[in-house]
């Protein structure tokens, strides 16, 4: 029965690559302002992903200019996501990087994975 559910869902957005926790990403989101549509960029680290068909999401954390952490959750298959660019992968040992929330500066760095 879940097979039928999967066929109802929209196809995978080709502009969104597979995302992993710790990825440094730049998410391009289409935003409607009145009649105009523009693309907004959100850069940060993927804290965790939730992969389940159309309900898939990923959460990106970035530290804003005044040192305040901003986390944003995106629907992976949403047509509003123009594209996602992975700038680098990180060597991480857990699936959910909640520990980054309590860290800042040097200790919040992640080791790059090649």
């Amino acid at each position: 029965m879940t097979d039928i559910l999967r066929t109802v869902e929209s196809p995978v957005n080709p502009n969104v690559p597979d995302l992993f926790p710790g990825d440094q990403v730049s998410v391009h989101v289409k935003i409607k302002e009145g009649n105009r549509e523009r693309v907004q960029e959100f850069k940060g680290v993927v804290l965790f992903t939730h992969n389940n068909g159309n309900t898939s999401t990923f959460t990106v954390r970035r530290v804003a200019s005044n040192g305040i952490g901003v986390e944003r959750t995106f629907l992976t298959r949403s047509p509003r996501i123009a594209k996602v660019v992975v700038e680098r992968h990180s060597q991480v040992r857990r699936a959910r990087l909640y520990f980054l929330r309590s860290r800042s500066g040097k200790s919040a760095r992640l080791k790059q994975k090649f």
Partner: protein
Amino acid sequence: MFKGLLGKKIGMTQIFDDNGVAIPITVIEAGPCYVTQLLTSEKDGYSAVQIGFDEIKPSRITNGEMGHLKRNNLPPLRFLREFRTDDPQVAEGDKVTVDQFEVGELVDIVGTSKGRGFQGGVKRYNFGGGPKTHGQSDRMRAPGSRGAGTTPGRVFKGSRGPGHMGHERVTVQNLKVAYLDPERNLIGVKGAIPGARGGLIMIKGARKS
């Protein structure tokens, strides 16, 4: 006009509309159904359309049921349900599918809720239960008083209390049709519907729209 269909609950997911807004939908595999009998007020005392759904092996149904379906040369069907209507606009033996609905239309959904077994008042009727502290013991999920004292001296019939919960007919009204796939007999309604996945579902045209 008659609008009705039987189906099987497939499960929930979400789809995106043109603006990219996610809509939670429940997908139902509905039909193809057959009109197995037309009931009329002259003959039966009320008018309704009897619909059959889910083709099965002939050995799975009784000869009586088989004879009932043979009248209109229909295949063996697992479920037969009646839909009350004064204006059928269908004939016996007709095939009914999801084509009768369109996206954006409102429908009523009837299903059988999940059985919860014998449950206490806290779960079944949202009773508050007793205090956690102040020297209380064994009172946390107690139902409290059942009623007044010597007058009336009894518990009124129909009073809320512990008992069997769930596995009953539940109707959800005015759900919007958000998805249709006539080729595969799929219909998606916005929101949740009663029952477990795989459960029999009745879809009707909305009564209050």
